């Protein structure tokens, strides 16, 4: 049964193909015949119009090709690249993107005050910190270190609990040397607060989260 139906299908297919071939042959034969039956004068007229037309088409093609190569050179990618790079850099500065890199981690457990924390942040910025967090809160230009009435330290309006852990991305050795030098900030804190537990660890890689607050301008407008 199966081979029988296959045979039928093949027969039909061959028939259809035959018809198509015939049709093709007829058209070709007819156009040839038409060309052969036209007068030489007519042939010449056709040839000259074809030559003219093809020349126009070639001209059009060349113009389009020129346009195409212009577009290929100016798709805007050349400008977009550096612009995106600059944007990303400013976003790192603004704390509005997650960043990673080497640096130091300073852990302090003790009753230090707001001004001490501000001094620590100032010192880390002074030695080239490119991104900073305290207890996971990313510090931006607009971050405020303050304290509640009962003395707890707040950053970005979030209350911190001890120990205070500052993470700073930058050159680890430079930051370590600056913070641990004799008479430096950590030494001063240890002198001012008896029993203060301070540790500084160099880190090969830390990931600092994005600042979660919003920065909006109500009073300031850019000078054009």
């Amino acid at each position, binding site marked *: 049964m199966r081979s029988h139906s296959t045979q039928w299908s093949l027969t039909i297919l061959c028939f259809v193909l035959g018809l198509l071939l015939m049709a093709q042959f007829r058209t070709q034969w007819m156009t040839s015949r038409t060309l052969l039956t036209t007068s030489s004068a007519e042939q010449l007229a056709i040839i000259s119009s074809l030559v003219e037309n093809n020349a126009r088409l070639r001209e059009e093609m060349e113009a389009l090709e020129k346009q195409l190569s212009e577009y290929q050179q100016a798709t805007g990618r050349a400008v977009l690249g550096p*612009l995106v790079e600059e944007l990303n850099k400013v976003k790192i500065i603004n704390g509005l993107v997650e960043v990673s890199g080497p640096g130091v981690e300073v852990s302090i457990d003790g009753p230090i005050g707001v001004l001490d924390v501000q001094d620590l942040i100032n010192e880390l910025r002074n030695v080239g910190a490119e991104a900073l967090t305290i207890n996971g809160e990313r510090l931006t230009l607009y971050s405020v270190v303050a304290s509640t009435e009962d003395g707890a330290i707040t950053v970005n309006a979030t209350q911190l609990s001890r120990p205070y852990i500052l993470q700073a991305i930058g050159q680890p050795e430079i930051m370590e040397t600056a913070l641990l030098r004799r008479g430096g900030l950590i030494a001063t804190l240890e002198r001012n607060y008896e029993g203060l537990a301070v540790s500084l660890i160099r880190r090969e890689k830390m990931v600092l989260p994005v600042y979660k607050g919003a920065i909006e301008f109500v009073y300031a407008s850019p000078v054009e």
Partner: protein
Amino acid sequence: MPGNEHESGALAIRRLEAEQEELKESIGQIREQLNKYQRELAANTEMLKEISAELKRQKMMAGLLAVTGPGVQVTLDDSNIQSVPATADPSTYLIHEYDLRDVVNLLWMAGSEAIAVNDERIVATTSIYCVGSTIMVNDTRLSSPYLIQAVGNPVAQEDVLSNPAYLNEIKRKAALHDVQFKVDRVKMLTLPAYKGGFPIHYAQLGD
């Protein structure tokens, strides 16, 4: 009619017609590609516009644009007293870098949107420190008097600065030792843009 010539005429026609077909085909393809590029360019132009607008916003936040607006001007200066009593601590007659730091931090707390000290714009990487008796901001030497200008809500700014919970040391130095501490409301301040660089060598985008 010479048959050979006639046939070669027919051949030429067919050859020309075939060429015409090819040309039309190529033109069609090029037009299609051009359309594709034009669409891409339009999309990029749109993106360019968006990125430029976003960059401007980010630069404004970073302190890279000069800004104007209302706010306060805080003037701090060392004491005018010619001779400090021998028993007194001379440092209590002076303005120190931590005094500036304190005022700047309180101005941020009061919601300021831009701050400059003696025309040095405060930015995310700014540190206020001293070398000997010279105060440095953005690694630039400042000389007294110190003028801190902050764009923001002047009422909120004055409230914080006059709050007895803050700036106790400066206020005491002003009351006892004639150290200058003055807050003036200004209708329209203009703060310059930060002119330094933001060297980023270690921080990378993402994890």
